[in-house]
């Protein structure tokens, strides 16, 4: 095997060599599995942490470029050491604990958020075949959905244990928003699962001879929006809402705990970006270059789109964001499942030769997606999308001005 071939699928090759080397020692098979998992976890962390650090740097630089300023550029070349400087700064800060807060839960919340994000990487394939993922579960997507919703718990724990009104409001918003967005997110994945016929992540990537965004544009759109809400990133950062709730659920956090929250959020962002890459953008697949390069490249592309939205759009109000989930994304997700199911039926019956590139479906699905999004956004406001039309009289809104001057409610 040439060096180039070794590099092309680095992750898988390292693991294969490691397993072969272990097998030479005549160890018990359970021990081999354990040691294999260990090296897999280490490899995964080697993959995750540098990217997260680059994310933190890139977020600041990229948004700064859009805002006509250079961004952090003092620490190291191009300010690349800025995340490390930030980390050191937050780590040496004092840990502040609210006097009447719940100490244990307050301490536990960032840990839960951190690990729930980290656990998602177990099933994400960054190399060919079954060895590409740390644990190539046959219920991979189910695992992602299950673990992904753990973060709600962490956020609510943080908000409740802080004994702070801002934090509590943020946590309440978090529960409402994250639970609502879980539903369309899961439903949008169903389309992909229908086409592939498997929940296994390696299988999903393996079958993508073309990126699934081509046949599942609507699903990708819904998943992406849902993921933005799930990550509480702008424009859906209701939970943090700096201008409203200072920083929402982690208002009372400082020092190491804050850093853990911060890191946990970026790990979740990276996780979501990798999931989008895996499900809709063809995972590690790509011509000529090493597979891990393609994977990282796609992840960064997704992340940059997230940043672009963050730099441009303003925050949505809480009732609008809920309406958007239930009245916009959910029906669209259902329609998407319906269309995909019909297409899969047609596919199986009459179009056995089209697997490699089903351009009629691509065309039809894109047309449907664009038309649906445009039409639905027209009627969305009629369904009560949170936009109040001028001239409407709100209940409890005093008509004259004399009635307004009364002693304030105490």
């Amino acid at each position, binding site marked *: 095997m040439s060096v180039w071939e070794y590099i092309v699928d680095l992750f898988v090759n390292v693991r294969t060599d490691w397993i072969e080397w272990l097998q030479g020692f005549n160890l018990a098979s359970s021990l081999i599995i354990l040691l294999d998992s260990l090296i897999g976890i280490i490899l995964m962390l080697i993959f995750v942490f540098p990217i997260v650090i680059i994310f933190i740097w890139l977020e600041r630089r990229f*948004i700064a470029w*859009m*805002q*006509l*300023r250079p961004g952090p550029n003092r620490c190291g070349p191009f300010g690349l050491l800025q995340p490390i400087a930030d980390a050191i700064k937050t780590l040496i800060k004092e840990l502040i604990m609210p006097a009447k807060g719940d100490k244990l839960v307050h301490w536990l919340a960032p840990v839960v958020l951190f690990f729930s994000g980290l656990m998602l990487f177990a099933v994400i394939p960054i190399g060919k075949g079954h060895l590409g993922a740390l644990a190539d579960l046959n219920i991979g997507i189910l695992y992602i959905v299950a673990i992904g919703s753990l973060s709600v718990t962490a956020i609510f724990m943080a908000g409740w244990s802080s004994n702070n*009104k*801002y934090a509590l*409001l943020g946590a309440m*918003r978090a529960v409402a928003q994250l639970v609502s967005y879980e539903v369309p997110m899961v439903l949008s994945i169903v389309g992909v699962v229908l086409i592939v016929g498997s929940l296994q992540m390696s299988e999903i990537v393996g079958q993508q001879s073309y990126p699934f965004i081509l046949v599942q544009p609507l699903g990708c759109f819904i998943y992406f929006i849902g993921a933005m809400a799930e990550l509480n990133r*702008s*424009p859906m*950062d*209701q939970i943090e*809402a*700096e*201008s*409203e*709730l*200072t920083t929402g659920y982690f208002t009372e956090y400082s020092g190491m705990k804050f850093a853990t929250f911060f890191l946990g959020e970026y790990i979740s962002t990276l996780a979501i970006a990798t999931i989008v890459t895996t499900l809709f953008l063809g995972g590690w697949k790509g011509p000529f270059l090493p597979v891990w390069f393609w994977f990282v490249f796609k992840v960064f592309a997704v992340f940059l789109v997230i940043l672009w939205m*963050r*730099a*441009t*759009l*303003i*925050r*949505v*109000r*809480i*009732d*609008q964001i809920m309406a958007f989930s239930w009245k916009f994304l959910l029906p669209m997700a259902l329609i998407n499942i319906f269309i995909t199911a019909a297409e899969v039926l047609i596919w199986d019956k009459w179009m056995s030769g089209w697997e490699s590139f089903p351009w009629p479906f691509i065309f039809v699905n894109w047309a449907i997606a664009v038309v649906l999004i445009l039409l639905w*956004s027209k009627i969305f*406001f009629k369904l009560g*999308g*949170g*936009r*109040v*039309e*001028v*001239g*409407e009289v*709100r*209940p*409890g*809104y*005093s008509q004259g*001005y004399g009635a*307004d001057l009364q002693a*304030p*409610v105490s």
Partner: protein
Amino acid sequence: MELEAQPFVINFGPSHPSTHGVFRLRTILDGEVIVDVEPIFGYLHRGIEKLAEGRTYVQNIPFTDRLDYLASMTANHGYVLAVEKLAGIEVPERAEYLRVIMSELMRISSHLMAVGFLTNELGAMMTPLLYMYREREKILDLFEMVCGQRLTYNYMRFGGVSHDIPREFLPAVKKFVREMPGFIDEYDQLLKENEIVLARTKGVGILPADVAINYSVSGPMLRASGVKWDIRKDDPYSVYDRFDFDIPTGSAGDIYDRYRQRIEEMRQSVRILEQAIEQIPPGEVCTKVPSLLRPPKGEVFARIEAPKGELGYYLVSDGSIAPYRFRVRPPALINLGVLRYMSRGWKIGDLIAIFGSVDICVAEVDR
């Protein structure tokens, strides 16, 4: 089981990211819905009215800078107009034109900040605000060129202005006036057609015209409610009656209208600037006024159209070197009186947006 929900009190401020300074909104919430809002002031009260009673008329000019630090020139302008009215001082024509140029530049700068901070409070990640800082930077450079300071100008004097403009000022203003409409279009593009902006601002925080008048609301807020009232037109001071400009008005009086109002007023200010640069005559910039001015006994109320609203000065003179009573009619404070009316029944996010659309400067509210 019957659950009883109690409204709870939450204090926005005194130190909160979107209160424009130290200022507190004591809010009573029912879940996310605002039941009542009570603005609580005074964290920045410096007693300028009391301080002014112990200083001469000229020494009070720097204090007016510190009322509304985002619009110091107009605060200067109002004060010198009041004293000139009181003492009957004639102002050379060139000085009047310079005052108008400065006031209009200041208005553009202040409106830029108002719109920028409004978007920031709606949740934009600083981007529109920083674009607006870019234009404000140009204006501040121009001010620095004229009077040597970027924020507290202390430029106007009784009977004129303190300095004539340097030679490179007019070319720079011309360049600015040429470029500015393009930038205003750019901001409009960023915000006008954005669906989320429309959803957040349309129909929110409506202020009907009759309520606006009754609550003595002034400035862009009043005009956004559809009242065509601009002191530059209706009670012209300085040389505003020589310029051709429109008074844009809104129709609904919601946040969106207030935002549009400020954008349109910037365009009109650019128009005034164009004409002022064309017409500015040569000549003296200041008449001789004794530094220890002793205006005759009496009282005066002069008001101008400051960027935030109607800025009035009520001066009582007892014939000595210091004003007997120095009262500022602060537009921001009086505009805030209607906040409670506008925000009841809306959500927390709306409260912040409505508050941002009022465009206050806490230094002026508290004085």
